[in-house]
Structure formats: structure tokens, C-alpha cells
């Protein structure tokens, strides 16, 4: 293909790209989020057994998917950072961590408020919930580990290593409901079988999922600009782009 992807491994060429794309992703997130919430809370019918409590699914499931997916992406950037020793890969991993932590916290928090009216408890130490809590701790651990180093390049390597070690947790979260008895129900949507939900519910959930995708990409592209500005402070090229802006 004609695109030289390695060109964008340099903050010099990536910064203008991130600056140009971020607002578009955030605008898409706002539009899709509005449509998704309207479909989920206005159009979708109540559930036969759970009543209206099930509507938490429209935030809970997309947030839980994002929490797992962002971790895998973070691990991918970390592997690139360790392998190629590129600055931008580590900066992307750094930019992803707070958003991933937010998504994991959102999934746990909405899950607790779903569990209370349906299961009868906010929290149970079953495999799905415990492994998701470990995911949140991994995100917080990566953020804290970075704060413990003064030298950004040493912090990059340490954080990349911790991120890569933690990636084994992601398949454990995903398959926990299949491998063990859990209080948490199985997956309603998978790549291999037809969804076990009414069509309008699936549609609303997918729209919300795309909205969260767009939000996460937009916010991470925004944050990476700040990280580049902070870490490349004093670099002549940054001063030039700032003037050109």
C-alpha cells in the first residue's frame, strides 16, 4: 500500500494527525452517544424478567468491552515500544491507561448497580467480577508505576513490561463465565453465535459501543498531544508546529 506507516511513528508527523482527527472522533462520539441513549432508554422495550433494570446493559457492556480492548491495544503499543524502542509507542500506551481505567471503573460501578436489583447483591467474588477488578488495579498500577520514575524512558520500559505481564488477565476475564461457575451470566453476543437478545436491544448496544469507541479514540488522541507537548518540551520542532498552528 502507498501509506508509509512508520512515518507516523515519529511525534513530529503524528502530532498534526492527532490534532486533526481528535475533534472528529469526539463529535462522532457525541452524535452516536445521543442516538444510542435514545434507542436504549427510549425505544428499546423493557425486559420480560428484569424489567427496566436491564437498561444498564447499554452502558455496562460497551464499557466492559472497551476496558478489555484498550488493555490489549495498550499491550500492543507496549510491545512495539519495547521492540522498536520508539518514543511515540510508549506515549500512546501512556495516553491509553487513564481511559482504560475509566472504562474498567465504569463497568464495575454500573455492574454493581445492576447486580443489586437483579442478583440481590452489589458485589460477589466470582471469577468475572474479581478478574475485572484486577484489570482496574493493573491500569492503576501502570499509572502509578509511571509516576514513580523521574526518567521518562525508564518509566516507558517498566510500564511496558508490567502491561505485557498483565495482558494474560484479558482472556481470563473474557472466558471466565465459560470456564467456571459464576454468578455473572454468559455472553449474550459473541462472534460465533446469534445474539440472545431482541434485535432493537442489540442495535442500541452496538450504537453505544461505537460511541464509546469514538470517545476513547478521540480522548486518547487529545491526551497524547498533551503528553507529546510535555515530554518533547524545548524541542525545536515542537516550537515550530506551535507557531505554525
Amino acid at each position, binding site marked *: 500500500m502507498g501509506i508509509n506507516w512508520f512515518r507516523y511513528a515519529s511525534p513530529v508527523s503524528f502530532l498534526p494527525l492527532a490534532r486533526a482527527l481528535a475533534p472528529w472522533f469526539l463529535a462522532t462520539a457525541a452524535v452516536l452517544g445521543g442516538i444510542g441513549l435514545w434507542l436504549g432508554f427510549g425505544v428499546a*422495550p*423493557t*425486559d*420480560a*424478567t*428484569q424489567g427496566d433494570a*436491564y437498561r444498564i*446493559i447499554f452502558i455496562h457492556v460497551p464499557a466492559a468491552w472497551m476496558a478489555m480492548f484498550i488493555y490489549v491495544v495498550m499491550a500492543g503499543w507496549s*510491545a512495539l515500544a*519495547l*521492540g*522498536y524502542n520508539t518514543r511515540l509507542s510508549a506515549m500512546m500506551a501512556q495516553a491509553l491507561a487513564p481511559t482504560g481505567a475509566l472504562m474498567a471503573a465504569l463497568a464495575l460501578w454500573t455492574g454493581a448497580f445492576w447486580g443489586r*436489583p*437483579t*442478583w*440481590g*447483591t452489589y458485589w*460477589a*467474588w*466470582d*471469577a468475572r467480577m474479581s478478574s475485572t477488578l484486577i484489570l482496574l488495579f493493573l491500569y492503576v498500577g501502570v499509572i502509578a508505576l509511571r509516576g514513580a520514575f523521574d526518567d521518562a524512558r525508564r518509566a516507558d520500559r517498566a510500564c511496558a513490561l508490567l502491561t*505485557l*505481564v498483565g*495482558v*494474560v488477565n484479558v482472556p*481470563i476475564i473474557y472466558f471466565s463465565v465459560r*470456564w*467456571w*461457575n*459464576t*454468578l455473572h*451470566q*454468559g*455472553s*449474550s453476543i459473541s462472534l460465533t453465535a446469534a445474539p*440472545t*437478545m*431482541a434485535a432493537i*436491544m442489540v442495535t442500541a448496544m452496538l450504537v453505544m459501543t461505537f460511541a464509546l469507541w469514538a470517545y476513547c479514540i478521540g480522548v486518547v488522541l487529545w491526551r497524547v498531544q498533551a503528553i507529546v507537548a510535555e515530554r518533547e518540551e524545548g524541542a525545536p520542532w515542537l516550537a515550530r508546529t506551535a507557531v505554525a498552528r
Partner: protein
Amino acid sequence: MTPRHRRFALIGAGLCVLAVVAALVLNAFQSNLVFFFSPSQVVAHEAPQGKPFRIGGMVVDHSLTRDPATLTVRFIVTDTVHTIPVVYTGLLPDLFKEGKGVVAQGSLQPDGTFRATEVLAKHDENYMPPEAAAAMKAAREGMNDKTFEKPQP
């Protein structure tokens, strides 16, 4: 092999070793990762003896009895092979229903009943509007009627 290739090979090998270690650890802790035991496992003495544990299964239809004076309820949990009678004093969750999933924490009494200290409802991953659920129920009952009719022409 350039140093770059060596680094990527090292990362890949490290992840493989990590995956194997995780699989072995999870396998070793298998019994601790299980949230509840089925009635069959309890009957086969696979559940922990002499300390509290959780049982899970379906509430048998028409098995729920309430003590009119207190909050004590009795019901039977089944995994369609074995059954365990459960006694519980307290409020049941809203989604607790006969024929639906349940997880109860407590201990097995010498007489074979399970005295629960906490009862949780376990719902499934199916979501549908009430009209669809009613239609499915009607269809199921219609099918049952036909099977009942068949032996008596």
C-alpha cells in the same frame, strides 16, 4: 537476527511462558475459582465439608413454601440430576422465581438440608420484551398440549 528481531522474539517467548504459567496456576486453583457447587457435586462430596460454601442450580417448580409467621422459606434446588432442599430466613431477591437460577450460600446440615445465610438470583443472558416472552410461553404450552393430546386420540 538483528537486535530488534531478538527483542520481539523475547517478548513473544515471554508472553508464551506467561500464558503457560497462568494456565497452570488457574488449573491448580480450579476449586477456589468456582463460585458455586451444583447439587450433583454436593451429593458426590466434592463440596467442602464442614465449612460454608455456595450451591447453585434451578429452583424446582412448585417447591417454594413460606412459613406464614416468619420470613423462613423452603425450596428445592436442582441441576436436573440431583436435588438439595434449602432453608433460608430473610428476604429473597426480586428475580428469585421457581424454574429460574439461584445461588445460595450456607452450610449443609446433618439431615441433608442446606441452611442458607444468603440467597442470590442468577439470571440468564437472554433479553426479550414481555410480549415476546409471553408469545414463547404460549407456544411452549401449545406444544405441550399437543404432546398431551397425542396419546389419547
